[in-house]
């Protein structure tokens, strides 16, 4: 369906396409003027934040076939970096941003490095463990992170001399970074680097035989994903104004993961859609919030049963369970041999 929509759109005359784009951009930019409810703006901000978060996880899980599940840990590193630098050391928010991103990428790399030569499952466990460890460190290193009390009163970022305080203002920051993330990632994916990532996902051994440096590209991919998660965390810190370790539990990681899975991994649009679906579901489930993660768990399982590639993933992709092509897959060694 997305294909026909795309085709229909690209068939339109150029002027019409520009008009549609322009109109869309104006509407998106004016949203905070129309929607003054801070409740609704809050939800929209979350959606935009999670586009970057789930999207960056998807870069790792969807494009190189590694499987990180501790994304909350990287989110936490970015968040704490900005919180600590801006409240304890009075750094300007905009300077903490790149530091948060780069630091997260470096830490992510150090953690994941031993697993790049191994099966994807090792990375899963290491990231899962890392996510818990970061939370434990945040909880126990009181001198740096405030321990169980967290860090309160994180200064608001300034933009052109204005303090950014309301959700309606943060909207623009979240929007800027979500759009930036999508544009930049789109470019990376359509380059030699993105192709190398995808080739690793499709067939690691073949990729190597063509000179694709496995460890280098897996590391680059992982650092790239962690970088954006760190940035998202950095923006989240002043927005939420208060960070403590309870924000970054494994459940938060699963929350991000479910967005990528439900939307469709291996597509740029998947996590965007996933962020909308899960965050709106989040609000609908507010009266029974205890069941929230049960519902996500069920959704994930159901998704795997009926549509493993996610809502907008292509059915003819590596991530789909393409049973009709099972014989071919076996022959290609892309799939475990049929057992029963």
């Amino acid at each position: 369906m997305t294909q026909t929509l795309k085709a229909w759109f690209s068939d339109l005359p150029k002027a019409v396409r520009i008009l549609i784009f322009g109109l869309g951009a104006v509407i998106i930019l004016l949203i905070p003027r129309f929607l003054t409810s801070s409740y609704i703006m809050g939800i929209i901000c979350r959606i935009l934040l999670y586009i970057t978060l789930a999207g960056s996880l998807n870069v790792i899980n969807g494009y190189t076939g590694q499987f990180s599940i501790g994304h909350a840990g990287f989110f936490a590193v970015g968040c704490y970096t900005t919180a600590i630098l801006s409240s304890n050391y009075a750094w300007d928010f905009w300077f903490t941003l790149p530091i948060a991103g780069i630091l997260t990428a470096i830490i992510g790399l150090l953690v994941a490095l031993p697993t790049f030569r191994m099966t994807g499952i090792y990375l899963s466990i290491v990231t899962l463990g890392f996510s818990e460890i970061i939370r434990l460190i945040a909880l126990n290193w009181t001198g740096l992170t405030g321990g169980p009390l967290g860090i309160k009163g994180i200064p608001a970022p300034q933009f052109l001399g204005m303090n950014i305080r309301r959700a309606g203002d943060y909207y623009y920051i979240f929007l800027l970074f979500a759009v930036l993330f999508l544009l930049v990632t789109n470019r990376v994916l359509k380059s030699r680097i993105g192709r190398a990532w995808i080739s690793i996902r499709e067939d690691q051994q073949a990729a190597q035989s063509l000179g694709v440096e496995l460890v280098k590209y897996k590391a680059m991919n992982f650092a790239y994903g962690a970088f954006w998660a760190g940035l998202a965390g950095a923006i989240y810190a002043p927005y939420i104004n208060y960070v403590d370790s309870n924000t970054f539990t494994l459940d938060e990681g699963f929350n991000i993961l479910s967005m990528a899975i439900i939307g469709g991994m291996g597509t740029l649009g998947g996590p965007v859609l996933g962020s909308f679906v899960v965050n709106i579901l989040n609000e609908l489930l507010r009266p029974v919030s205890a069941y929230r993660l049960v519902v996500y768990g069920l959704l994930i399982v159901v998704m795997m049963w009926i549509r493993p590639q996610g809502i907008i993933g292509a059915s003819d992709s590596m991530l789909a369970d393409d049973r009709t092509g099972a014989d071919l897959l076996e022959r290609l060694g892309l799939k475990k041999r049929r057992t029963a």
Partner: protein
Amino acid sequence: MSQLLVANNVSKHFGGLKAVDNVDMIINEGDIFGIIGPNGAGKTTFFNICSGVYKPTTGEITFDGHSLVGQKPEQIARLGMARTFQNIRLFKYMSVLENVFIGFQTKTRTGLADAILHTAAYKSDEQLIREEGLKVLDSLGLLPFKDTKAGNLSYGMQRKVEIARALALGPKLLLLDEPAAGMNQLEKQELMHFVIDLNKRGYTIALIEHDMRFVMNSCNRILVLNFGQKICEGTPEEVREDKGVNEAYFGKGLLVGRKGAAA
């Protein structure tokens, strides 16, 4: 003629199984080098050692003056050795052209910043792989299928795409693992001419093949393996005359029978 790939006493043991046992071999520049032998003779294992998939248990391989021991497959590819796989390992969900694009990894240099900022380096890389990629496809007659998903092509076509992808590396040595497997006689004939043609264009080729006619008519040197050991290495004529080869292939009894019939 210079020596391109030299294997010295190469062995690979899996537990107690000696898959490859003390094999010596020299591939010269300009060769079409055939490796033959019965099933399980260790041919593919030998290829996998050459291309870095396995580490040899003992022995040494040098390629174009570089020792290959301990090198990773991607490093060996960068040295100029490209290969295809016995069980075809295409990126089956990518288009044919995209498959070939991956083959240009070693020839391009786009970094993260180049890709994000669309610098001149990015643009020239993209232009290069598009032009050269189309050229490679054209030379194999694959141009009409450039946008087809590789997995949707016929078996013979897939083999060709795999070769095209390997050629994109501009390899000094091309390893073909059973390129004619699953092809009919006509396709085999066509492939054979294609291999000979490639060789004339300057590619050194090593291939594993079961079809004797294919090997005898295309290769200028042949290595015969049996139970991991080298039985014979030489020109097609020498191999044809070699007693050990006949025994390995047809069995002693059969050989006697054939002699008897001839007498």
